[in-house]
């Protein structure tokens, strides 16, 4: 059975999360993950640009963004540009099409990705991306301080295109006029853009790299990396939807995951072996439904650290780390 899934970059998304880290899209039926099989995706670009971005600039920025993911040495995903097309994104035609569209009603949405996938195996059939042409875009190599960087947003959307969900490693503040403004993030897959002029999201972060490598592992990745696991509880009850960050004090790498198991279980894989600091925080820096559609997500607790360093052993997963949090 084919199923269509829509994810928006800024305001909301719909996905069924798995216990694993960062976040992967799940099929909602069993544990199958949405992914390309084989790990080679062909894509088309629409043959028109947007104000300030020619069709050629558009294609070049997309090629650079796809290359960013393809260059991850610990992952095997590959992409192939199939050509320009006049077909629009979001048409269920078996083609993966990327293009600009006018969506003035989505006044906080820079771009979005949709999928068609087999909901038994999770194998992707088609994935389309649109960029909202009501915003001002830049495709220049150095960016433009007054425009959104097309390549940065494309790297984010391509993360969805290959099956990654949103990461929660970031801090935001609520704006007086509504919405949130990001103060900082440590993942390209954070759901809120760093803003006009920023080209920081052209570069993948450890959380993004762990996510794509876990989904499309290169030879030796599983044996050369490790994982941490644990359980988050409050007053003896499981905490669902807690965000856990594994921090490597040696490298400074931050990789996140969510407690989505029925017992508040979490697991974060793809970590460089070594000791980690575990920090648990409520999921209060973006709309919860941009991460998953669970009804009982608990955000009423204080930021808490696990009292010990937790080991991620090479080729395995460490002992269970139980973390008890307190209400605010």
């Amino acid at each position, binding site marked *: 059975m084919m199923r269509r899934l829509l994810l928006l970059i800024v305001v909301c998304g719909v996905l069924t999360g798995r216990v694993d880290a960062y976040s992967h899209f799940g099929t909602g039926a069993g544990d199958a993950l949405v992914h390309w099989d084989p790990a080679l995706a062909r894509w088309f670009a629409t043959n028109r640009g947007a104000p300030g971005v020619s069709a050629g600039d558009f294609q070049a920025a997309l090629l650079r963004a796809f290359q960013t993911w393809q260059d991850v040495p610990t992952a095997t995903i590959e992409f192939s540009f199939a050509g320009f097309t006049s077909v629009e994104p979001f048409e269920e035609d078996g083609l993966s099409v990327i293009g600009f569209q006018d969506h003035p009603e989505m006044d906080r949405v820079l771009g979005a990705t949709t999928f068609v996938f087999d909901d038994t195996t999770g194998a992707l059939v088609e994935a389309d991306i649109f960029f909202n042409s009501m915003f001002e875009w830049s495709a220049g190599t150095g960016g433009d301080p007054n425009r959104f960087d097309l390549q940065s947003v494309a790297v984010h959307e391509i993360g969805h295109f290959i099956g990654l969900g949103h990461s929660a*490693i*970031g*801090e935001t503040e609520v704006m007086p006029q509504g919405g949130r*403004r*990001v*103060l*900082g*993030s*440590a993942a390209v897959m954070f759901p809120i853009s*760093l*803003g006009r002029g*920023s080209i*920081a999201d052209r570069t993948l*972060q450890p959380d993004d790299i762990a996510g794509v490598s876990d989904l499309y592992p290169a030879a030796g990745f599983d044996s050369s990396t*490790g994982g941490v696991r644990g359980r988050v509880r409050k007053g003896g009850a499981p905490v669902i939807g807690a965000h856990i*960050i594994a*921090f*490597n*004090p*040696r*490298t*400074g790498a*931050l990789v996140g995951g969510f407690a989505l198991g029925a017992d508040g279980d979490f697991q974060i894989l793809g970590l460089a*072996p*070594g*000791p980690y*600091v575990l*920090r648990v*925080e409520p999921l209060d820096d973006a709309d919860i439904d941009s991460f998953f559609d669970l009804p009982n997500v608990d955000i009423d607790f*204080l*930021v*808490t*650290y*696990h*009292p*010990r*360093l*937790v*080991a*991620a*052993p*090479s*080729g*395995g997963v*460490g*002992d269970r780390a139980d973390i008890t949090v307190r209400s605010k």
Partner: protein
Amino acid sequence: MKRVVFGVLFFVSFTPFVSLVSAQAKPPAPPRAPSAPRFDVSIGAGILGGSSLDGANADLRGRTGGPLALFTTSSRIAGSVPLEARWTFPLGPRYALEFRAGWARPELRTKIDGDFEGAPPQTVAERFDLYTLDVGLLMVFRETRPRTMVPFISGGAGYAATVHEGLTLLENGVVYRGGGGFKYPLSVRRQGRVKGMGIRGDAGLVFMTGGAATDSGATRQGAASGSLYLTF
């Protein structure tokens, strides 16, 4: 031709003479020279002084381009008490090849501060098993004599493995050590399987990459140990 015949005759006539003399005199056998020691084995314990590690902050990429600290950390490997064993094989009167195996259980401590969302500062820690196996060269400055302190210098390099509970390998790396010390023979025997016994003190520096070390370089720890050795 004649010379050859003479030589053969001389040999034949001389041999019975020597045998005869030997059978008649039978002087007491000279004392056997002590056999050269084949190797030392030493077992001991010591102190590894610990080391500060490069602190890495949990930095987010701020919207203004600079880092935004989610929290800051500083880490340290605490001092530990390593156990060690050595096998020392003489290469001559002054040099020896030395194999060393060590085990320690240091604690890695990370201090967390400045949480962006106000979590209180705290220190988190965990103990790890550190196994080292190295080979090196030892040079003594004077000949070994009973009740005489023998200074030496030594250095070596080898393998280090950091292992967590359940013998799960966390990381491996390279260990380098250098320093000096003394050997003090308490007894030397000319015969028997055990040809001597003594005490040994070592002091120096241990450098380690990988393991519980930092990404940016090697950790450096002062080390001192005392051992009991047997010479075989």
